[in-house]
């Protein structure tokens, strides 16, 4: 078991190394012109340059700010509304078609509206981030609330638990794993939309820096910023998974995973 894990780790490192070497060799050999794809070493140099600049850190902060606020609003609204709709059957039946209709509306359709209403303000970024990530959370919480064990619910009724106590002790523990999954999905979507808003609308942040680098022809810097965006995405995924394991440490699925 232990040896298998080490082997996997080494293979992963080797794969990553091979990928980086490939990206160094392909442009150097002239297979792809360097002005389209700079070799790894030049991207790394540009990345080091960026890391030394205050404007880069400000852009990173702006992106993370929009991401965090938008995600927090979306999660709060999604969990609140999800529990409310999920625990009242009539409400669930009445809203199902509306949710099915609103969910697939692509959030980027709101870009022109956001520009008109808020310009390049933080608020236009938030509008997109909240709209996109809200549905991820809501849909997960709704299916969680639907999954409540009827026997547990009947037991709660027999013990005369009030509405609030039922939500707290029966519905919430069942919903939590779903809500956390929704949070993980929403965290990734929120980052994509935050950066998209910056790229298209021009709100300050990493996306705007990428657009600026592109128009000014700073190709290695553009690639370096794309790499940063990717690393940010990886970081968000890893953090969300770590949170998932922590919050759900009591849950059978996590316990099984830990034992295996």
């Amino acid at each position: 078991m232990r040896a298998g894990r080490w082997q996997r780790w080494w293979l992963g490192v080797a794969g990553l190394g091979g990928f980086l070497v490939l990206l160094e060799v392909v442009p150097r050999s002239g297979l792809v012109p360097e002005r389209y794809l700079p070799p790894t070493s030049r991207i790394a140099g540009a990345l080091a340059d960026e890391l030394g600049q205050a404007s880069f850190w400000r852009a990173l902060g702006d992106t993370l700010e929009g991401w965090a606020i938008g995600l927090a609003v979306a999660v709060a609204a999604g969990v609140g509304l999800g529990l409310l709709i999920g625990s009242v059957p009539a409400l669930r039946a009445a809203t199902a078609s509306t949710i099915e209709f609103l969910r697939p509306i692509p959030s980027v359709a709101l870009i022109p509206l956001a520009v008109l209403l808020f310009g390049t303000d933080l608020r236009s970024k938030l509008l997109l981030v909240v709209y996109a990530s809200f549905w991820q959370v809501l849909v997960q919480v709704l299916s969680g609330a639907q999954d409540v064990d009827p026997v547990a619910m009947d037991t709660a009724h027999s013990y005369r638990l009030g509405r609030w106590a039922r939500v707290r002790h029966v519905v919430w523990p069942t919903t939590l794993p779903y809500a956390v999954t929704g949070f993980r999905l929403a965290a990734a979507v929120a980052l994509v939309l935050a950066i998209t808003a910056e790229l298209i609308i021009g709100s300050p942040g990493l996306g705007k820096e990428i657009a600026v680098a592109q128009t000014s022809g700073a190709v290695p810097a553009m690639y370096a910023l794309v790499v940063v965006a990717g690393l940010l995405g990886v970081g968000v995924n890893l953090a969300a998974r770590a949170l998932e394991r922590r919050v759900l440490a009591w849950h059978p699925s996590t316990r099984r995973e830990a034992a295996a």
Partner: protein
Amino acid sequence: MNQAATAARRALLVGGLPLALLALWWVASADSQSFYLPPLREILGVFAGVWLGPRLVDDVLPSLARLLAGFALAAVLGVALGVVVGSSRRLRAACEPVLEFLRAIPPPVLVPIFILVAGIGTTMKVLVIVSGCIWPILLNTVEGVRARDEVLEDTCRVYGIAGGARLRHLVLRAASPQIVTGMRQALSIGIILMVISEMFAASSGLGFTIIQFQRGFAIPEMWSGILLLGLLGVALSLLFRVFEHQVLSWYHGLRRAQRGPL
């Protein structure tokens, strides 16, 4: 009688809230003086004139064709690569970090890179759509191929089923529920990228036209574009559900059978 009442109740549940919301929008905006929030009457009034004329052929259909081309290409590439990577434990371990990184790059960020490589033509837009759609399909295929049933695997070996037949009847079949899940995620990403690639740099297309309206302060026209995008999103997801129902009917039947009669 009773049946009719049930049907009416169902119709009310499905249609009630959407109609109420539309009516609310209609009434609340009826004498709106706000420049940015025109009356719904006005938006619907310009809708047909804006989108059903020459723009349907010049902007809307080419956008949809690019979406379809990119999505199909991503599906083929994603499934093919996914089967290769998923079949080998070593290859999977070697590719995992790279794939995780590539998947985590927000796809719109790649638009500037593809503009650099392929200009602002159709190639760039299709490439952008492929680059965003491929990851959910690829990663889900890898998972699906990896988690196939061992008994079926052994059965295939015993009966000497190999090569193309094994691929078709065992590997792809077993992975198909996962592949379809990946394709569903990819479709919604694809719509977003279709719009974004046109908003960023283009001279035609749905996203481009909507941004033009916004820049020209043609507000009712812009709103009609937002409505059209929403309708497209809904229509494509309904179409996909029909497709899923067709492809995975065996799977849903199997699940029902396993759960036993209720």
